[in-house]
């Protein structure tokens, strides 16, 4: 189901006004693909996607009074989903280091292709590269992971990340700089464990 901006606003306003269950169902049906794909891009474990999507909609309806009716619903929902992903990783222990033996065969291939800069071969390893990237992100804290994931996997700009996370532009830049440094160290460690 696809809703226009005005239809989604009308549904949210109906929920805000009188907790209209029908309107809420329409919103879940319309925005579930968007929310689920956003969560899937940031959370490696596919089993968590449904739970996080449910938590996103729960928070959206429970905090409906905080939604500014003059703004579109989608960015607000995206912000809630991103925060849910961050909370998900905050609750999890950070993997202290990543070693060559921890990687799957495909991830090892992707790493070797990256190290040897074998472009034609590496281009066939997009899925494995993504999986390897997720492993490297696992070595970072929840906030660092989120900022690099938005920056490198989603290709978002600093301004877009600031809007999504609610952080200032300076904080996003500083966080990205520090997170990149940590990921570089994890990459070097992984490379050292291979050679």
């Amino acid at each position, binding site marked *: 189901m696809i809703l226009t901006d005005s239809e989604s606003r009308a549904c949210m306003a109906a929920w805000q006004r009188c*907790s209209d*269950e029908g309107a*809420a*169902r329409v919103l*879940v*049906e319309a925005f*579930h*693909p968007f929310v*689920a*794909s956003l969560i*899937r891009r940031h959370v490696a474990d*596919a089993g968590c*996607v*449904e739970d996080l*999507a*449910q938590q996103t*909609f*729960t*928070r*959206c*309806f*429970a905090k409906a009074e905080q939604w500014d009716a003059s703004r579109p619903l989608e960015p607000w929902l995206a912000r809630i989903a991103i925060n849910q992903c961050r909370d998900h990783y905050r609750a999890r222990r950070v993997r202290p280091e990543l070693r060559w033996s921890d990687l799957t065969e495909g991830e090892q291939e*992707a790493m070797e292709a*990256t*190290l040897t*800069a074998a472009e034609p071969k*590496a*281009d066939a*390893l*997009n*899925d494995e*590269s*993504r999986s*390897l*990237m997720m492993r490297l992100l696992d070595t970072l804290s929840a906030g660092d992971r989120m900022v690099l994931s938005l920056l*490198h*996997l989603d*290709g978002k700009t600093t301004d877009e990340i600031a809007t999504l996370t609610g952080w200032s532009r300076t904080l996003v830049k500083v966080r990205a700089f520090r997170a*990149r440094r940590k*990921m*570089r160290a994890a*990459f*070097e460690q992984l490379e050292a464990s291979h050679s």
Partner: protein
Amino acid sequence: MNEIDQRLEQLAARARNATAPPPAELPFGLATRAIASARATSDTSALWTQFSLAALPVATVTTAACLWWSASAMSADAHDLAQVFIQTPLFP
């Protein structure tokens, strides 16, 4: 940009081109669960707000009574102290 950064950038670029997963089906009952859960959260917060509002006059009256009692005790103490000073000869 150093060599490691370049490699990481290449890795990220390939990761961005990874196959997009098929669009997720709406899990059965997700809307019902989300709505019920949101209502439960709202009910708890509404109950807490109601309790806080009801407790506010009681807290105000209690605070006022404490202040009045403490002020009167202080003035009685000051009166007693003044009496002691007045009755004590300066050069015994």
